[in-house]
């Protein structure tokens, strides 16, 4: 059975993508999935090369036959979202695609057509195959696109007989987050020791418990506030979620992002050591082979010495 690790955070900006990317550099055999379809970022640090792009359709949009329209105003009156005026889609962004206008137009002047809501993509990266997506601007339905990305990642993992999918989840606790974590093997909650971080983590715990998904916690920037870090540790204990990592504040996360690398490729020994321990703990909870994570320091040295070119 393919295991699915979802990296989540009650909200954005906690370092979820950076830490997730670092784990992808350590895990030996996996597929990557970026379910933050609103603002997919993982591809920016794993060096992606696009291989496939598929249109994603979801929902419907009304199209009006101007010649047939009688300008009777019925659609205007019935539309609850103020999106149409006498046969003119005046506020397309407000349209929910419900079809009330089309079904009730006396002249049958409106038809509902499939709406292109974005694309899902497959890319080759330094750390394995990545399934990601781009949701169209201002489009709803991100939950469905998240499910599509997960489905594609899963079928590819099965086809290649890979034991693990590492998913960068969407922030928040709304529909995309729900779509990303239901049925996952483990959620790794990346949080930071701020008041808002604690608050968001509580909501994430609630969501994970609600859907019966096991959750572990990684505290990023743990040294910024000792007091809040202790509060997170206590909260996690109450919620029976093991704290598997405490990552110190480090500007190298920014540096890594700027150079398009994961921190495993640029970070200090102290930081990469901490993340390596994090991965070993996560792999243990998942019951997957941690791979050469322990030997990563050596591998990195070989990389530095120019060994990368010689490796398959």
């Amino acid at each position, binding site marked *: 059975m393919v295991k699915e690790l979802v990296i989540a955070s009650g909200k954005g900006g906690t370092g979820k993508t950076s830490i997730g990317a670092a784990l992808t550099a350590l895990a030996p055999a996996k597929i990557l999935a970026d379910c933050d379809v609103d603002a997919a970022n993982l591809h920016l640090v794993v060096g992606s090369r696009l291989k496939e792009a598929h249109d994603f359709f979801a929902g419907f949009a009304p199209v009006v036959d101007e010649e047939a329209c009688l300008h009777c105003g019925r659609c205007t009156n019935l539309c609850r979202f103020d999106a149409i005026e006498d046969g003119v889609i005046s506020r397309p962004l407000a349209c929910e695609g419900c079809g009330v206008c089309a079904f009730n137009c006396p002249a049958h002047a409106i038809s509902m057509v499939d709406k292109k809501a974005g694309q899902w993509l497959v890319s080759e990266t330094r750390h394995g195959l990545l399934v990601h997506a781009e949701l169209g601007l201002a489009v709803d339905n991100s939950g469905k696109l998240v499910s599509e990305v997960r489905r594609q990642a899963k079928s590819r993992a099965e086809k290649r007989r890979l034991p693990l999918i590492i998913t960068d989840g969407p922030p928040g606790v709304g529909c995309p987050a729900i779509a990303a974590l239901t049925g996952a093997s483990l959620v790794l909650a990346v949080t930071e020791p701020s008041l808002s971080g604690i608050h968001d983590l509580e909501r994430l715990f609630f969501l994970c418990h609600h859907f019966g998904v096991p959750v572990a916690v990684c505290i990023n920037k743990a040294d910024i506030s000792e007091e809040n870090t202790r509060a997170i540790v206590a909260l996690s204990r109450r919620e029976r979620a093991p704290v598997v990592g405490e990552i110190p504040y480090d500007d190298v996360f920014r540096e890594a*992002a700027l150079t398009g690398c994961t921190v495993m490729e640029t970070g200090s020994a102290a930081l990469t050591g901490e993340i390596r321990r994090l991965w070993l703990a996560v792999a243990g909870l998942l019951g997957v082979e941690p791979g050469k994570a322990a030997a990563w320091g050596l591998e990195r040295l070989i990389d530095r010495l120019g060994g990368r070119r010689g490796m398959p």
Partner: protein
Amino acid sequence: MILSIASGKGGTGKTTVALLLAASREGTIIADCDVEAPNCHLFLRPKWETETRAGVMVPRFDMDKCDGCGRCVQYCLFNALAVAGGTPLLFPELCHGCGGCLLACPREAVSEERREIGVFRTGVATMNIPGQRLISGLLDVGTPAAAPLIKTMKKQLPHDADIILDCPPGASCSMVAAVAGSDYCLLVTEPTPFGLHDLELAAGVSGMLAIPHGVVINKSDGGRGDEAVEGWCAAHGVEVLARLPNSREFAAKYAAGMIDGEYREAADTLWRRLDREYRRRSDG
């Protein structure tokens, strides 16, 4: 003026900017529209004064009249209805409240009832900016649709004050619901490739909604990341209105729930520029 504060992604400092702006001008109202994870109240510790449950209308079926013909089910484009054992069954989390099934039923068996999706509260701050008025929404956990709550909340806002909307991150439905109708949109970004990528998306939505927008670079360090953001802004005719420095000290203060006085000067300058932009646009 209704000023919305948005960013493609979370954690860029939207809430910080909203609080800084509110602190430097009296009489503003902060509306925390990030209803999935509202944060402003954590910094303001408001004394809550009113609480309103928000709801959406969902269909209700009168089984004495319904004969299970299934027309309502065929009608619903959101798959929120199914027929089970000859009676219609609603999946409320999928319902958009369009009223279509009501219109479709030949036997007048459908009426509507309210389903609660969250709450919004108004209050007055006791911490950091004492007296600051705040309205803050909170979506019930497990409820997927944030947009209706945001819309209901925005309808309650007074017309005669400067309103600062702390918007949800992203560039999809809930962000659109929050930003729509504002006079100016301030896009807060970080000088990293992540920040720039998400800024492009958020700017795209402001553009589609025809809302004038400008950029605040938070955690600016004058380095390569700043150059990339500034280059993008220059190429797309978007003005960089302010830069807030990257500082570990500030991050620590933020973590403890404090806003720092030294940033007020930056906020004053930002207001002056926003006022000028706003006047220029409403005159022209």
